[in-house]
């Protein structure tokens, strides 16, 4: 019996180790693509937000931070869709987080965040 319980506990732990954490709230079918990649000491930040109509007003705030220190901010805008791509200089050995806040027709979307290390 004890062995059976141990097996169930191990399997449950295995499942939990690959199960995502559920969060966030949103409204309609809007495809958002965000990307943060690092090559050497250059970080490439990309964002594409698809609106619902050609007149959708889209704005975003993209921040790159090193812990609590914000090292770069962009505020791109678009109509119908938003396409943004830019690079940022990073320092080796640090961990950086790209956070993206998107507003579509005045309505804020959940914040997106990606953390990567510059190695």
């Amino acid at each position, binding site marked *: 019996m004890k062995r059976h319980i141990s097996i169930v506990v191990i399997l449950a732990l295995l499942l939990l*180790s690959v199960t995502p954490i559920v969060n966030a709230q949103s409204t309609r*079918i809007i495809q958002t693509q965000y990307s943060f990649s690092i090559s050497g000491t250059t970080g490439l930040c990309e964002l594409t937000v698809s609106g*619902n109509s050609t007149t959708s007003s889209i704005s975003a705030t993209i921040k790159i931070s090193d812990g609590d220190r914000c090292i770069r901010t962009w505020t791109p805008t678009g109509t*119908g869709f938003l396409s943004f791509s830019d690079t940022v200089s990073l320092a080796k050995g640090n961990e950086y987080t790209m956070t993206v806040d998107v507003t579509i027709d005045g309505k804020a979307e959940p914040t997106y965040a990606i953390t*990567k290390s510059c190695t």
Partner: protein
Amino acid sequence: MITENMISQAAAELNEAMLNCLPEATACNHNFSPRFQKRMKRVLHRLKHPIRHRVIQRVACVLLVMLLSFASFLAISPTVRAAVFGWIREQYESFIEYYFPESLNHGTEPTTYQLPYIPEGYEEFGKSEQSSGITIYYANHTNDRLMYFGYSTEPDFTAYRVDIEAFKLETASVNGNSADIFISTDPSQANAIVWIDSKTNTYFCISAYLEKEELIYMAENILRIS
């Protein structure tokens, strides 16, 4: 003075006396439960094959350690997850996220795709062309409807998030790949289809004011340009 011999002799006598007190085996008419018999059978089998049992135990231990190590790598390393799963699909309460944790194929030439046809009355409205993916937008002649076609092949960390709150989620097959179909509960909204081509590890999304069947048809006939 009591010697060890005396103790041994007394113990043997006690053993004999206790055995004599036991009823004859034929007088014991007890029916053991099937569960007990099964367990006894297992114990006897183990005693008969001790080496085999020990080998099985050791193999099981090694496999368990390997499985736990692999699961830990999967949980910790995005690179390992990408190598194993490719694109990862995670469904949340109000959206589905498709993400590619880390590219293993840096520097490969991007592949270009296009829709098999553009619905009547639509023209290209704009294009988002990035290293992590391409999205082409089409608008209708009254400029109030926007449809788009997006794709991305093994990018370095890239995530697509599709909001699903006002949509009915259905599944379909696109050339043998599982696809998510987002059917709008509001006719003023576009429907969408998202699928991952397992052969090329490419994420595709078509969002358009089309019925489910037409979206599937379009998805199945995507053209590979280069």
